[in-house]
């Protein structure tokens, strides 16, 4: 793990990258990284996240700045700008059931090819997907998802890069951190080694490539 500035971290993200971004309606989203992506004007991004938050907030800022080409998310209903760009054909949006999306990411990070879920069977979600019957129940084959970068936000990070998340800001973060080829983290507080007890570490340090230092 290497500690760097947010400017240096974002400079490592090429145009056209895929980004797995933690957060749920912007709660637990690494806001400083988002702001810097907007400042550096990274383009043609693919974003994998639960939602696109609201205009002007979290991932919504990337949408507002028209930096995103494709979104894979479970819900965009609270961001009219995402819907506008989608209807206008400027943005490709792939909608995935929330429980399927998080498991696809988990599979990606845990070395699995995909998962089987009954969610979506017999609905529009099953279009183009393989189905498997096991003990009389039908499941969809949902493939694993990874991304070039995982961008996560922790509550605590220690000097080694061990991460702990707080309350409902945990959401996608520990799962996303496993599924990025490069993992960049921010934290509310950077603390000495040992402050996060081993039992309370949610993302182990070796998973994190870059920890963004305090401004």
């Amino acid at each position, binding site marked *: 793990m290497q500690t760097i500035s947010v400017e240096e971290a974002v400079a490592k993200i090429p145009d056209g990258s895929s980004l797995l971004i933690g957060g*749920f*309606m*912007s*709660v*637990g989203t690494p806001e400083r990284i988002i702001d810097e992506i907007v400042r550096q004007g990274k383009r043609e991004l693919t974003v994998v996240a*639960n*939602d696109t*938050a*609201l205009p002007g907030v979290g991932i919504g800022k990337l949408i507002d700045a028209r930096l995103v080409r494709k979104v894979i*998310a*479970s*819900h*965009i*209903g*609270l961001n009219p700008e995402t*819907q506008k760009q*989608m209807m206008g054909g400027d943005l490709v949006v792939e*909608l995935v*059931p*929330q*429980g*399927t999306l*998080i*498991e696809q990411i*988990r599979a990606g990070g845990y070395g699995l090819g995909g998962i089987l*879920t*009954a*969610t*979506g*069977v*017999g*609905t*529009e*979600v099953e279009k183009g997907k393989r189905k498997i019957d096991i003990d009389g129940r039908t499941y969809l084959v949902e493939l694993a998802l990874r991304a070039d970068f995982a961008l996560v936000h922790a*509550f605590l990070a220690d000097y080694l890069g061990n991460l702990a*998340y*707080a*309350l*409902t*800001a*945990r*959401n*996608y*973060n*520990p*799962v996303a951190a496993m599924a990025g080829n490069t993992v960049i983290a921010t934290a509310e507080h950077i603390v000495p080694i040992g402050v996060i007890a081993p039992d309370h570490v*949610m993302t182990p340090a070796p998973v994190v490539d870059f920890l963004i230092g305090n401004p």
Partner: protein
Amino acid sequence: MDPQTIIARRIAQELRAGMLVNLGIGIPTLVANHIPEGLQVFFQSENGLIGTGAIPAEGMAHPMLTDAGGRPVTALPGASTFDSAMSFGLIRGGHVDVTVLGGLQVDQKGNLANWMIPGRMVPGMGGAMDLVSGSKRVIIAMQHSARGKSKIVRQCDLPLTSIRPVDLVVTELAVISFPKGLATLIETGPGVTVAQVTAATEATLAVPEHVPEMRF
């Protein structure tokens, strides 16, 4: 009583101590306001919380303690938090006893459509498909009609949420269950007659000899 209160109060009667319950947005959220005092029900918020409490008092909101809409909530004593994989493991894995969701249409076999209107409203399904597919019991809270049209239809023409039928539909006019896969009127709303319910319903309802009124 207004329609929303009738629906929320009636559904609250379905909840028992110790249940893990997931409430959707809209009318379902109101169910929490009608739980009898002292009844321990665990409310799950799918962004990663069991033990969701009321809206925080002025100045007590925490930016990292929110509901699925991103609004501040409180956590009750005994609450727990977890990541989204566990949250949906709880949902898909059959650990949620009851989910209460809104609906656009329910048909006479109990199929639900509640996540999109093609060409008009495409918000994404969020957790709805997992909740309907995986919860032990699915209760739909919705007004009986929208723009003068019955929401309880012969067959859904909107895209389905799941092929798993719902267990109970509660409107301001009726409580409908689906024994043997057939919509059956089991209660009428306060002051509502069976004839009024069937007249307001597109689906064919099985009507037992005695249909009681909702009691509060």
